[in-house]
């Protein structure tokens, strides 16, 4: 087993463990922290897939901004009451999720998977190549995305503002 594979398995098992830690704890802050950790490990996985720019963006945007926003809101609301857990509902939901997982996996193995990665240019996944795509072929979606963010800002302010 090569070093790459070992690295992959370590990262994969860490991400799965922390993903599970997102949905199980009763404490919302623990969930959020677990998600932040998952995001961080997924970012490292991005690095192994030659996507350094997106790995950094993942840390910067997801872990650094979105998750902080979550924590911020959790602290602001400080929800006290803990939810009840009905066994039947949990079992049903978990079974459905497992079924989904099995179906997805069998879908992936429906056809043989390509083994090994094709060689890519050194700059693949770097800021230049990403920017090249974004500002040429995807210029319009890029602009629309900026409008979307603006709309989200205004929407959030309008929603969260106290009346009167």
């Amino acid at each position, binding site marked *: 087993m090569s070093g*790459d*594979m070992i690295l*992959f398995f370590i990262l994969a098992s860490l*991400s*799965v463990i922390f*993903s599970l830690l*997102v*949905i199980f704890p009763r404490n*919302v802050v623990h*969930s959020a922290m677990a*998600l932040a950790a*998952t*995001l961080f490990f*997924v970012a490292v*996985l*991005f690095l192994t*897939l*030659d*996507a350094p720019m*997106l790995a950094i963006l993942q840390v910067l*945007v997801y872990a650094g*901004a*979105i998750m902080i*926003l*979550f924590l911020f*809101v959790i602290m*602001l*609301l400080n*929800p006290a009451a803990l*939810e*009840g857990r009905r066994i039947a509902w*949990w079992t049903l939901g*978990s079974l459905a*999720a*497992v079924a*989904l*997982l099995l179906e*997805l*996996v069998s879908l*992936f*193995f429906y056809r043989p*998977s*390509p*083994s090994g*990665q094709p*060689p*890519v240019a050194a700059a*693949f*996944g770097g800021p230049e190549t*990403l920017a*090249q*795509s974004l500002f040429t072929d995807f210029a319009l*979606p890029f602009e629309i995305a900026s409008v979307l*963010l603006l709309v*989200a800002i205004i*929407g*959030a*302010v309008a*929603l*969260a503002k106290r009346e009167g």
Partner: protein
Amino acid sequence: MAPLNYYLVLSAIIFAIGVAGVVIRRNFIVILLSIELMLNAVNLTFIAFARYLGSMEGQVIVFFVMTVAAAEAVVGLAIIISIFRHRRSLDPREMQLLKW
């Protein structure tokens, strides 16, 4: 190098965990967190395919998914705040006005 399917299976696992979280947890914030989890699983798939196809499109899509996720989180949290202000609760079962 790990084969493509490994990454796909990993993202399927994370996605399924996210789905389970959305369905079983009775807490808006955790539901939102689980949605982020699902989005991330999909991002991982995109990036893996981008790597194996040697094309930047997958990464570009992930960029846009991040944008959308940011917008979604912001608006979702704003909705949660305003709901919490009215109901003092984060339980989705308390919000059942839209029925019948």
